[in-house]
Each structure stands twice: as C-alpha cells, then as structure tokens.
C-alpha cells in the first residue's frame, strides 16, 4: 500500500520535472520566435554586445577571440545562433561558485538586454542572484564615469599617441580621493621585454587584448610618476542606467581575449565600443575604420556637448617639479641641487638663512628632485633613501602646511588641438643653376603632429609624422609624380638645463629625392636618417639643437646598392607667437666612397596657424653638393582633420 503510494509519488515527481522541462522548452521556443520576430539578432545593440564586426563582403565576425565568450559553437560568426544559444543558456540551473558562474551572470549585460526586449517571465525563467557580480559592483560602487587620457611619450613607439582608459568614480566620495577609484583599462597582453618586437607585433595583431580593473593610483603612478605623462581627466555625464550597463558589460569582458591591433582595435577603440554598449543608439566606434588615435577618439566622445561634466588636469611628476623649480629663485634652485646631490647638509647656513616658508619649498623640491632623478635612472634609490627621508623630516619640522600653488591648467586640452590628419595644397619653384621649374604640390599625412604645427594640445618638442605623402605636378613636363614619402619622421627635442638632462634624437625613414647616378638627377631613394644630440632653450620659446646624424641610402643604381653618410646638423626652433613657428636648420652629410658626395641641406620653414585646423606654411630650402645645388621655395595651405 505504502509502496504503491511511494511509487506513485515518484511517478508524479518525475512527470512534474518532465513537465517543467517541457514548459521550459516551450518558453524557450516562444522567446526564440519572439526574438526572430523582433529581428533582435540583427539589432545594433546585440551586435555591439557580442562585438560583431561586419565582414568585408557579408556576414559578421566578432572581435573577441575567447571561445568561452560564445554560447554557440559558431557564435563567433553567427549572431543569430549565438542569440538562440544565449537564450537557452539562461535556463541553466548551474549554481554560482568561485570558479563557475551561471550563464545569466557570466553574460549579465546580454541577460538584461534580452530580458528587457523580450519581457522575460520570471516564473518561467527564474532570475539568478549573481552574488559575485553584486559584490564586485558594490566594491567599485560606481557613480560617475571619467575618461582618463595620459599624453603620449615620444620615447616609446607604443605610447606615442597617448592612451585612454576609464575611471569609475565611487559614490559619495569627494574628488580629493579619486586615487582610490578603480579604472578599466584595455591593453595588449604580453610579456615581451623588447620594445621594438612589441610595437611590431602590436601593429600586426600578434597579441590578444584584454580588459583589466585596477586601482587608479596604480595607473597614476605608472603614467604620472614613472613615465612623466600629463593626464587629462574628463568627467562624463552618464545616466545611472548607462553606468550600470557599462559595468555589466565590463564584467562580461574582463578576462575575455580580444583581437588587438595597434592602429585600430586598440585601447581607445575598445573604450568607444564599451561606451556604445552603455549608451544604446550611439555609434562612436563606427566613426573609426582604419585607425583610432586616442586624441581623436576623445574628441569624438566629447562631440556631444552635454556629455562633459568637467575636465581636470593632472600634471606629471616632472611637470610639477618643473613648476616648483620655476617658482624658486636661482639661489634657491642652487640649494635644491646641492641638497639633492648631498653637497651640503641640512644645517647648512644658506639653507637655514631662508625664511621658513621658502625653506619648506626648497626641501620639498629637493626631495621631489631625488624621486624624479631616480625614476630617470639618475640615482640608485638605496643610496638616497636616507637623504630623502631626512629632507622630509626637515620639512616636517616647519609648522606651516603651505605648499606650492598647483600647476596652472593649460588653456588647450589634448583633445582640443589640431586634427591629427593633414592635407596640404600649394605650389612653388625650384632652381638649379639658371633652370627654373614650377610645381604644384599635394600633401597628405594621416598622422600626427609636426614640430611646426600649432602646438596647443600637443607635447612641446615632440614630432610624430606617419606616412607623409607628397605628390608634385611638374609644369615643365606636365607629369604628376610621387615626390617624397616619409614613412616615419619622429623628432624628440627636449631642452636641457641644470635639472633636466634629456637627450634629443630623431628617426626619419622613407622615400626621398637625392641626386644619384648620372646628371645628378634627383631620384627617389630609400633613406634612413637618425641623429642624437642636445637641445638648449635660450628662452621658453627659442630652442637650439645640435645633432650628429647618420644616413643610409638604398637604391639599385648606387655602387653597392647602398651608401652611408654621417655629419652634423644644427638647428633653431622659435615660437614667435603662439600660432607662428619658425625653424632654421642646416646639415652636412658626408657620404662614403661609393657616392663620394658631401650633401648639404639648409632650410627655413614657417608655420602660421590661421585657425586651430588651418595653417599657412612657407618653406625655403637649398640642398645639394658643391656643384649642383637645388634652391626651392614653396607655400602650402594646410588643413587638419580627424
């Protein structure tokens, strides 16, 4: 009797669970049909959530390369089957552990998007608690999204254009505590110690990209203190819903591998993609298809005028130190150096003779200088630790808590400078002996900044030009020719003084015109030119530099198909007014026996900025050897754009 009842109960239970499964299947089928009717698989927001890109001809491929990110075996290339499989996965009753997540939590942004679109019935599709996500969210406690933009550094090919990341500002915390906010950073994942290999592989896509979440103070230390890059922080106006979506999607993306390409699918592009998910209806990343330069992506983000709440400037350790030094008189500056180099002790009369207020500033600057010098490899820290601490102790004995005034905020931010692409049109005349020829010139440079271009928003003394094409129409023989093509043209001119002792350098490579072969005809030659030297600022706006250059030319008509040259170059750069830059330089390159040529190059260039994105450029050059010199004058109108 009891046994019959028991078996009956079992039967009943089994049929219930079977029935539940059937109900689930029915509801899943219903949802899939609904999704199909609503064409959700083709919806822009779905495509963004799974990071699908349209292929060249047809179909889609996701930028994400982690198979675990997809629910369907063909999810990487099939938005529809991925959507179906995602819906099916939401019925899973997997319990969350430290290692495993329920699919609803693993894909929490997708879940909430689909729930909203398909109006999930929680009695048929129970919602998971996702405690790990909730805890993570609570710890980060997001209130505001801030875009962080550290400037580029010219001494690293991988960070020339700057970098962007997000900071999530904590709810109810004052601005003075932003260091402890968390940041969302997208970067290529690599242990490659060689910077050149690393840059190359970054360009061709040899590394996966990945999001990480780390405290902002780690990033500030890296960019501000170690690499001496100024930072702009853009506090954005996002709605709470947008912030929540951004956090949900970040949760999905952390530890997911992306295809990383230095020029397009880089940090800045991925932040746009993240913002597009957070703000349905926006397509910021769609505005970039070949390359995404951080300053351009920032400008695009800020195009919507309402989005910027406030921009905050965070100067680097070097910028702050420079500012402090500039606020000391020359006697005080000497004391700073003497203290830092341990030439005088703290009880030195001259130090003690300073007023308390001034002494406090001198001691602190000496400390900062030791920290700076160490970050540049100037000191072994262990040798200066005691001295550093003693400087702070001496500063500490002075009761006043006054400090230096903050570094003034620059008028022009990194995103407000000229556009990074340049198009130029103009004309000029060349003269060799008595023969004069006129030409019309067209120039196109995709990126980024020339020393003479309007400097506002760019790092002083840093030039980075990529793929600078020059075409000329010669009016004599009525032909259009590629005149020159500078593939890479980088200058780093940093002034030296008693505190800062950088080395200036340049690397230029591309196709240039040189007189080789018979008739000293100027022919297209592949050239690599590099130089190292010193730059001194006579004033803030007038710099002179001296370099030793080396040049290698490659051409099939050269005796050994190559020629090598060396020689000095000397130059001057003068910022006459904020929009008017002038450049004078001369170089002498003596070639080896194969070419037996001493080639000189004198030039004067002026750039007059008419507006942020237009400029007039006047160039006069004389170059050649003793017997065959080419004189040239030209004027171009330059237009900058993104």
């Amino acid at each position, binding site marked *: 009797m009891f046994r019959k009842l028991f078996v009956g109960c079992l039967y009943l239970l089994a049929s219930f669970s079977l029935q539940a499964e059937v109900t689930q299947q029915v509801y899943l089928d219903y949802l899939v049909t609904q999704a199909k009717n609503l064409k959700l698989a083709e919806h822009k927001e779905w495509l963004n959530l799974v990071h699908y890109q349209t292929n060249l001809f047809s179909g889609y491929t996701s930028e994400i390369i982690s198979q675990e990110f997809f629910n369907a075996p063909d999810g990487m290339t099939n938005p529809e089957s991925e959507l179906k499989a995602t819906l099916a996965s939401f019925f899973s009753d997997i319990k969350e552990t430290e290692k495993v997540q329920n699919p609803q939590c693993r894909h929490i942004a997708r879940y909430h998007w689909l729930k909203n679109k398909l109006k999930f019935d929680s009695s048929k599709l129970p919602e998971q608690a996702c405690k790990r996500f909730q805890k993570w969210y609570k710890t980060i406690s997001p209130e505001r999204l801030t875009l962080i933009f550290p400037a580029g550094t010219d001494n*690293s090919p991988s960070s020339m254009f700057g970098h962007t990341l997000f900071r999530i500002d904590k709810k109810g915390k004052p601005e003075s505590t932003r*260091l402890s906010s968390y940041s969302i950073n997208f970067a290529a994942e*690599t242990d490659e110690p060689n*910077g050149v290999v690393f840059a190359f592989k970054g360009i061709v896509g040899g590394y996966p990209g990945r999001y990480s979440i780390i*405290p902002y103070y780690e990033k500030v230390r890296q960019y501000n203190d170690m690499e001496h890059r100024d930072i702009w922080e853009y506090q954005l106006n996002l709605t709470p819903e947008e912030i929540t979506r951004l956090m949900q999607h970040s949760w999905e993306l952390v530890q997911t591998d992306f295809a990383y390409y230095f020029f397009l699918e880089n940090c800045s592009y991925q932040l746009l993609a993240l913002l597009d998910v957070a703000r349905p209806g926006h397509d910021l990343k769609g505005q970039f298809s070949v390359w995404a330069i951080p300053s351009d992506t920032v400008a695009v983000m800020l195009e919507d005028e309402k989005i910027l709440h406030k921009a905050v400037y965070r100067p680097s350790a070097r910028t702050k130190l420079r500012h402090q030094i500039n606020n000391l008189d020359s006697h005080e500056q000497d004391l700073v150096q003497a203290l830092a180099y341990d030439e005088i002790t703290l009880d030195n009369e001259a130090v003690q003779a300073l007023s308390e207020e001034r002494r406090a500033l001198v001691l602190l600057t000496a400390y900062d200088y030791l920290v700076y010098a160490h970050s540049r490899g100037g000191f072994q*820290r262990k040798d200066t630790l005691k001295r550093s601490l003693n400087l702070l102790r001496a500063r500490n004995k002075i009761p006043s808590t006054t400090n230096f005034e903050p570094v003034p905020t620059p008028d022009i931010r990194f995103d407000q400078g000229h556009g990074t692409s340049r198009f130029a049109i103009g004309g000029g005349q060349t003269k060799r002996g008595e023969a004069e020829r006129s030409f019309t010139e067209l120039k196109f440079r995709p990126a980024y900044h020339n020393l003479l271009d309007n400097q506002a928003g760019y790092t002083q003394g840093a030039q980075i030009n990529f793929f600078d094409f020059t075409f000329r129409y010669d009016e004599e023989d009525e032909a259009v020719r590629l005149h020159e093509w500078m593939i890479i043209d980088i200058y780093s001119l940093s002034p030296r003084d008693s505190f800062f002792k950088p080395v200036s350098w340049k690397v230029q490579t591309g196709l240039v015109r040189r007189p080789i072969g018979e008739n000293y005809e100027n022919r297209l030659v592949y050239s690599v030119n590099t130089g190292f030297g010193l730059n001194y600022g006579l004033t803030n706006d007038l710099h002179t530099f001296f370099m030793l250059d080396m040049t290698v030319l490659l051409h099939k008509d050269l005796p050994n198909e190559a020629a090598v040259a060396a020689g000095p170059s000397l130059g001057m750069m003068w910022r006459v007014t904020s929009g008017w830059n002038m450049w004078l330089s001369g170089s002498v390159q003596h070639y080896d026996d194969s070419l037996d040529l001493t080639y000189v190059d004198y030039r004067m260039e002026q750039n007059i900025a008419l507006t942020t994105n237009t400029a007039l450029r006047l160039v006069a050059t004389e170059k050649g050897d003793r017997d065959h010199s080419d004189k040239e004058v030209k004027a171009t109108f330059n237009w900058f754009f993104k």
Partner: protein
Amino acid sequence: MKKIILSALVGVMYAGSASAAPNNVGCGWGSMIFEGSSGTMMQSLAASTNGISGNQTFGITSGTAGCAKDGVVQKYAAADAFMGANIDKVARDMSVGQGEALETLADAMGIKSADKARFFEVAKANFDAIYTSSNVTSDEVMVNLGKVMANDNKLAAYTA
C-alpha cells in the same frame, strides 16, 4: 614597469604570507616607485604602455589584504593596499600636513570629515614616529600610524 606593477600586486596579495619573510616585497619605503628605473630609451620602449601593457591580474586585488600584520590595522584592508602602493607619496604629504595621498588614505581608513583636520595634524606632528627609518615598510607605517592615533582622544575611536 610591468614588473613593478606585478610586484606591487603580488606584494599586496601575498602580504599575509610574506610577513614571515625578511623582505616584504612591495611594502618597503621607497620600494615601490623606485624599483627598476626607466632611464634609457630602449628600456622605456619596453616599459611604456599605450594600451600595450602587461599582465595585470583581474580583479580588485587591493582590498583583499594589505601589508599589515598587526591586529591594530587589520580592518583597514583598502587603506593597507593604498599605503603599500603609495608609501612615498603619503610620506611627502604627511611631512607637509596635507595632500591628495593623505586625503585618500584618510578616506580609505574611514576618517569622518569632521575628524580629518585632526588626523592631518596628528600625522604631521608624529611624522618621525610613523616613518621611523628609511627601511620602514608600509605595514610598519600603518601600525605606527595606528599607535599614534590610539594615543589621541579624537582618533582613538578609529583604532578600537
């Protein structure tokens, strides 16, 4: 650079077990910003990052444990982690009596805004007792700070 970040993270994560080791990686005065320099050009080629940076581990590593080993400050996990990474900046700010690093530390320790001025005063007045030597580690700094606060009428409550 990456090495430094890693050692900082590792230092923060494994500080508990490191307490027995003679060297507290990533916690010493001057060990953070200063370990490994980026002097020459080639070095900084590898060190710098434009979205090409190393192996930062996922997650909120700080907040799991600080460098502290003394009971006095164990409850300030986020503060410990912050101190572990910013021991030099906090020293600079404490010697002056103000600054962003000190503000952030105060916040991480849960100091109420009404008590902040006092916290700054006490930190400045006891700088020598907090940064006892150039070999001091961040956990020692936190312990010393805790002791100094325990002796102050207003701040003692935070160390209870």
